[in-house]
């Protein structure tokens, strides 16, 4: 694992039943990687919107554009207040010769 950079992502999610969320998001580093991430997460209730909704999820990131497509595993944790939140996690990506570890922390806006 080496280097760092700025990433951005946009996604959509469904909930059924309510505590379970199923999302699909696209992420990019604006240079050479675009990643699709289907993810399943569980989110707790918030208290008055002050104590955030905690979430934990797992998914399968798929790297595109950067050579052959690569499949990985993602573990993700999140805190969400109304409109804003923080998401962090770790990707373990398969490579041609070795595994690629990729950690991230993102600010998130929920509409």
């Amino acid at each position: 694992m080496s280097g760092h950079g700025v990433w951005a992502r946009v996604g959509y999610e469904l909930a059924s039943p309510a505590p379970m969320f199923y999302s699909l998001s696209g992420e990019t580093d604006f240079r050479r990687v675009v990643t699709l991430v289907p993810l399943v997460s569980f989110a707790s209730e918030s208290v008055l919107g002050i104590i955030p909704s905690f979430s934990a999820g797992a998914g399968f990131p798929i790297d595109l554009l950067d050579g052959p497509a690569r499949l990985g595993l993602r573990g993700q944790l999140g805190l969400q207040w109304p409109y804003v939140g923080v998401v962090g996690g770790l990707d373990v990506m398969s490579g041609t010769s070795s595994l690629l570890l990729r950690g991230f922390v993102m600010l998130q806006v929920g509409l």
Partner: protein
Amino acid sequence: MVWACVWQLLVGNIAASRAEPATAGVEWSPDVAVKAETLDFVCGLEQGEPSCRFFATYELEPLTAEPPAIDVRFVGTKTSDVVLELDGARVTGSVRIGQRSRLIARGVIHPGQFVEPSYARSAMSVRHPLFGAPVHRSHRFDFEYAIAPIRTFAGPPPKVTLHVEYRRAGRSRSPVTTRSSRPSGAAVKRSWTPRHCSRCASACRCHRRHSSRAAPSPPWAG
């Protein structure tokens, strides 16, 4: 989305005819005894809103040789379509009763609705406050029906039969509560709270049997 709901039926008392005119309360026609009283409630959803149809039957018997005149009226809150019938004929105001007359009051009770207070906000509403699907919160529906106080009826305490039925959505009949009692002077007050109501999405399917004693359904319950 979870819509937990609680139905509650409260039966209280108001004043009616009295056995002892000297005591406090509304005094009218102590010459009529109520031999039996039957109360039937059938609750269900109508156009998405819960409501109860009631059917109250009073077996009246004069205590004097001369057929006494009585004032009949129904007092209730959040009721509609109330009809009073004496021996099969619609009546209002003052009527004379014969031997073993049957007075019937029937109509519809509408509930009060309260949102259960909670500090919790669903994950959906927190994560997507603008475009998230609406989240149903727990509601409670209270039905109130006031009956004449049994202790103030003239004559000996009548036999009182109370039958409450709640219909599950999409089902024709499923009684949940049946009570039959003979009060001994004290006002009758019962409260049922059918619970076991989680995950009610489009229609509540609350169902709880409170008594194993079966009672015949009212004739108008189709």
